[in-house]
């Protein structure tokens, strides 16, 4: 039987091991981003922006040019790159502490200006790199090192739903939330990413895809359990779906219906 390659590393993914913990879904998200870059044939003109957080070394994991940004500032750096070189395909890769806490101003204004860039937002409801502190996305009651009794919404507020927030902006955009805790979710997530990058390549609009992600290390549970935790605790609060498209004049959130890709 002749040999044939059925599975290989995307060209846009560097041939190195990542520094992510076992069971963390950053690796899945990296792969999906790389596959989409390859499929669109834009690797040679793609520039990524690494955040401060677990993905700080993302510049080592993709085979593209990269910028490493200050904490939360990736959307501003992306703006600078895209305005300087509109021919480049620019994506910012950010975690929830980076994007939803210290970088809230940068992400909202980048989206509101309608910068033709793509933001990949990985939300694992905790600060991973610094050792498991409470994030703006930490679930009510969820234990973290800076809320040892669980997040108290009376003093820390409720988890911020970034996708919903970005979707309220009038500027046309593609805004979606996905997850990667099951193969089916990952397939749907890739479709969202493909749309997001395509909107940028076509010069249509700002695009933003949130990925609900796991952090077995700082959540203190095995990877499989962490995937269940996403399904049970995060998905009900952070509904999956396309919330905004550039075509839709409708500003109201439009959660994806069951069966919709």
């Amino acid at each position, binding site marked *: 039987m002749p040999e044939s390659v059925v599975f290989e590393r995307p060209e846009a993914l560097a041939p190195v091991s990542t520094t992510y913990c076992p069971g963390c879904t950053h690796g899945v998200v990296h792969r999906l981003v790389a596959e989409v870059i390859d499929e669109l044939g834009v690797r040679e003109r793609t520039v990524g*922006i690494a955040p401060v957080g677990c993905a700080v070394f993302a510049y080592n994991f993709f085979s593209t040019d990269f910028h490493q940004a200050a904490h939360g500032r990736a959307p501003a750096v992306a703006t600078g*790159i895209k305005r300087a070189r509109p021919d480049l395909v620019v994506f910012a890769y950010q975690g929830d502490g980076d994007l939803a806490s210290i970088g809230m101003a940068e992400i909202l204004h980048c989206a509101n200006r309608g910068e033709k860039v793509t933001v990949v937002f990985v939300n694992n409801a905790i600060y991973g790199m610094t050792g498991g502190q409470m994030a703006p996305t930490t679930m009510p009651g969820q234990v973290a090192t800076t809320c040892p009794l669980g997040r108290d919404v009376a003093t820390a507020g409720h988890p911020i739903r970034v996708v919903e927030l970005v979707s309220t902006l009038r500027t046309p955009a593609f805004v979606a939330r996905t997850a990667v805790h099951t193969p089916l979710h990952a397939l749907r997530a890739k479709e969202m990413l493909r749309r997001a990058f395509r909107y940028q390549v076509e010069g249509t609009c700002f695009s933003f895809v949130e990925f609900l992600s796991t952090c077995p290390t700082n959540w203190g549970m095995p990877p499989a359990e962490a995937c269940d935790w996403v399904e049970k605790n995060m998905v009900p609060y952070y509904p999956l779906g396309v919330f905004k498209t550039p075509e839709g004049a409708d500003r109201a959130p439009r959660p994806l219906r069951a069966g919709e890709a």
Partner: protein
Amino acid sequence: MAKKLMKGCEAIGEAAIQAGCRLFFGYPITPQNEIPEYMSHRLPQVGGTFVQAESEVAASNMLYGAAGSGERVFTSSSSPGISLMMEAISYMAGSELPTVIVNIMRAGPGLGGILPSQGDYLQATKGGGHGDYRLLVLAPWSVQEAADLVQDAFDLADFYRNPVMILGDGLIGQMMEPVEFRTDRKPRKELAPKTWAATGWKGDRPRAIINSLFLDPEVLERHNHKLQAKYEAMARDEQRWAESGVAGECDVLVVAYGTVARVASSAMEDLRAHGVRAAMLRPISLFPYPYEAVRRAAERARAVLVCELSCGQMLEDVRLAVEGRRPVHFLGRQGGMLLTPEEIAARIAELAAPREVSHA
């Protein structure tokens, strides 16, 4: 190009365009709003891009991204806004990005006031942001010099792959003077192509990664040594100053920069007419500081007078230069108050007057 009557802020903007800069990212703050305003109408005329950022934090990080893409880019702000940019400036220095940042200083600390000051000297020349880094800092004393220095700043930034700061005060930004833009100017040094810029990786060079993160301490130490070697090269090759009357012996050497030097020079014209031997040294590069020139000039004077619109910041560098060889005195105003020629003249005359020496 014929001379044009222009406001300092506008001349700074036009100089940047003449230097080939087509990107400006900024945020409004008094007293430098005429720079972003000028760029917002002028850049589209030359195919450039103006972006009003949501904050100085964002503006400076946009600069980081644009500079990392290999394009000439600049921003301007005033003291409180510059403080907000310090994070990105440290990253630019660490990542070796060429950018030009204009600080039209206003009085501080805190929100302070909107009137001219030189209170950001230490911030500009001794770091400002975190880590061991330096900016190349140039201080103009006229609108013409502001325009010339802005054009040079882009070349220096590219040559050293380092942020360059133009440190002016509110007077430089707001006053109108005739200015001429040199159309025949060429960089003083040959500028290498920006092969390090992140412009998309096609495999024909190593991947470009704009980065200041080095977790391995040995690697980070080497990186710091590389930066320091660059600052030493600046100290060797980029000192700039102007002097008048320092050739011979004198009673008082005045050391002042920016518009204060301008005020001092009119004070000195009167004094010389009255037989007071006063000389002046005006540092133009504040980093690298012309320590040796100040020391040489001070040795020909009986006393040194430092004049600043601050509580005495450059004063520290003059003392370092003089190393106790001569008494160093200070005359300053703060809060947006200006030094007058009469005030400076009176202080010089006082220092120049012969004194009784006690031999107790």
